């Protein structure tokens, strides 16, 4: 069987070699797709390979966790309280006399023990896996989306100057939203009307009196787009990230969506910098100039030609970003500001279990080790991707 498969493999390789030879004889380079080249390098990194395997396993576990713990009568019930069965060690079987049959865990065994309310830790871990996964992916998705847009604008349109009129309008709109949030609706209306007036005025002047002094003042070039965006990045980088997230999450009403959004909104600065740097270097390259000469629209150049070339560092930082988002969520849950109960997350299982550190250490070790393994796998996978996707490192 295996020899047959080997023979097929050898034949295929020979066929590929024939194609290569044909290409070489025509004076063309051997075709190696970018993906297979990256995979060849990635495969050699054993740690990264393990990281990817755990990454995929975690995906499957989290998805099945969602399915198994969802609904009114789930297979694994994470919030079923069984007072006689509290603080049981992992792998202990259910006491069939004390607990009603409909309250038994799946297969009658507490795979990972029970907590201080007799809830099945295995079911809670399965539910928490889905929370960790969604928080990581949604938060990083938000961060990457903001980073791509802002970094792309800063890198591609960086030289464009912002006119005074737009700056005024933006300031007025900011002021309007501040008024709106602080409950002074009338102020918001006035200020946004003012912004509209300025915009309309400059438009009217553009049509009729281009030489007038007012038009010249309003269309005065103030500051480059690039400078504006990168200054904003600098400002955002000055905030102590975890403290800011903690403050906002504590003030907002408790909800899992708030946590995702807040982690995403405080994590886009790195992506912006990467994308801007990539765009700055890509913009000067020949294929972009060629595309411009051919009259291809800016949108098409950016989305069809530049983003695919700039995506590698973004993917890497996103993978590592998921790891840190999961850590942040666990930290918030640990401090009591995470996903509201009775929903289980790995952070709040650990936080609830810390009171029984010496009596029921599995309540600390199981969620702690799970977070460690998942975050580690994401980090290793991300680093492996960085080595595989970075052409500069290949030469070494």
């Amino acid at each position: 069987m295996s020899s047959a498969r080997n023979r097929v493999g050898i034949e295929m390789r020979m066929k590929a070699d024939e194609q290569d030879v044909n290409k070489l004889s025509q004076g063309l380079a051997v075709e190696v797709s970018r993906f297979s080249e990256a995979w060849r390098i990635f495969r050699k990194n054993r740690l990264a390979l393990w990281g990817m395997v755990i990454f995929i396993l975690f995906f499957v576990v989290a998805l099945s966790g969602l399915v198994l713990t969802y609904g009114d009568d789930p297979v694994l019930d994470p919030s079923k309280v069984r007072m006689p069965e509290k603080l049981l060690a992992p792998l202990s079987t259910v006491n069939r006399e004390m607990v009603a049959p409909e309250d038994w865990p799946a297969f009658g065994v507490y795979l990972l023990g029970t907590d201080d309310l007799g809830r099945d830790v295995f079911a809670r871990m399965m539910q928490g896996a889905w929370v960790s996964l969604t928080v990581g992916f949604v938060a990083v998705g938000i961060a990457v989306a903001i980073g791509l847009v802002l970094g792309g604008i800063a890198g591609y349109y960086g030289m464009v100057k912002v006119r005074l009129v737009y700056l005024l309008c933006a300031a007025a709109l900011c002021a309007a939203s501040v008024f709106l949030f602080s409950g002074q609706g009338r102020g918001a209306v006035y200020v946004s009307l003012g912004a509209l007036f300025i915009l309309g005025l400059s438009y009217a002047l553009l049509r009729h009196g281009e030489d007038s002094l007012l038009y010249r003042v309003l269309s005065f070039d103030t500051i480059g787009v690039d400078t504006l965006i990168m200054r904003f990045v600098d400002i955002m980088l000055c905030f102590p990230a975890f403290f800011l997230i903690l403050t906002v999450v504590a003030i907002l009403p408790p909800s899992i969506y708030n946590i995702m959004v807040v982690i995403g909104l405080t994590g886009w600065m790195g992506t912006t910098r990467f994308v801007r740097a990539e765009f700055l270097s890509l913009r000067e390259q020949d294929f972009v100039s060629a595309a411009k000469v051919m009259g291809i629209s800016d949108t098409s150049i950016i989305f069809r030609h530049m983003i695919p070339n700039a995506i590698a560092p973004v993917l890497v930082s996103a993978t590592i970003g998921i790891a840190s988002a999961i850590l942040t969520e666990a930290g918030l849950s640990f401090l009591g500001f995470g996903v509201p109960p009775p929903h289980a997350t790995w952070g709040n299982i650990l936080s609830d279990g810390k009171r029984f550190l010496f009596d029921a250490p599995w309540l600390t070790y199981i969620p702690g080790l799970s977070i460690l393994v998942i975050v580690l796998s994401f980090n290793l996978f991300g680093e492996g991707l960085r080595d595989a996707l970075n052409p500069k490192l290949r030469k070494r």
Partner: protein
Amino acid sequence: MFSFTVRSFFQKLVTLFFISVISFLVIYLAPGEPSQIDPLNPKFTPEDLQRFRQEFNLDKPLHVQYYLYYKNLFTGQLKSWKDNQPVMAKINERFLNSLWLFIVGTLITWCLSFPVGINAAINRGSFSDRTSTLLAYVLISIPSFFFAYILIIFVVQTFHVPVIGMQTFGMTGAGKLYQAMDRIWHLVIPSILGATGGIALLSRYVRAQMLEVIHQDFIRTARAKGLSADRVYYSHGLRNALLPFVTMFGLILPGLIGGSVIIESIFAWPGMGRMAFEAILARDYPIILTINFVAAVLVLIGTFISDLLYMVVDPRIRL
């Protein structure tokens, strides 16, 4: 140099202004008011609420509140809403407590990561290199609160010493030596925890930097001259690999506040992070805002120092 200093100073001032505006808006515009912190308390009558709002300027328009807040901050008049104590005095007291953790943690970081990183770079691909790489990833990935509990279990069960708090209660009558030992035991675990992320990151940086340097021509020349390996690596190599780390002195300043929230809460360490956590719980806006402001100032000072050090250390860099 002078023009850079002046320009950079004004840039940082503008940045600081925007930071103050954004942090103020984020906190004041969030739903809910500090006066609603305890709405079910029967002793908190509507009149009290009115007085509370008046006392802390909460009934004024937002821009007036902003102006009053920063005026009070800079004139030292700012009071905590919780206990009416001056904010700067409170922060000062806690700052000194955090400083101990910070200094010991930084020392541990720098003393450990340099030998580990240099060793890994010199013996690239060896067993010790791969182990230290994996260990660095583990240290980055481990949740600090989980690591804290592992260390607590280990230290308490092995050495039988108390570790929570800054010192053991009732030690005031003991001898000086006992007191000092007690303080050191209490200091060890939190500062190791504070150093874990730093050790992992810095040792990786040192390794990368050292690898880059020892593949350059002047190292080959030094080897060809017949110098001993130690001289090549430590005298010629390390000196050139050190440049980026001199500048990191400035960038570790913000570590005084960031990241210590969880650790100080677990160990009941009366430092800045714990005060920030308590202030968040009590919705004590003046303290939250001031800690945020101090953190931003530290970041800006840190980047400024590191920029200056760049120039001093490496004359090729012009800013």
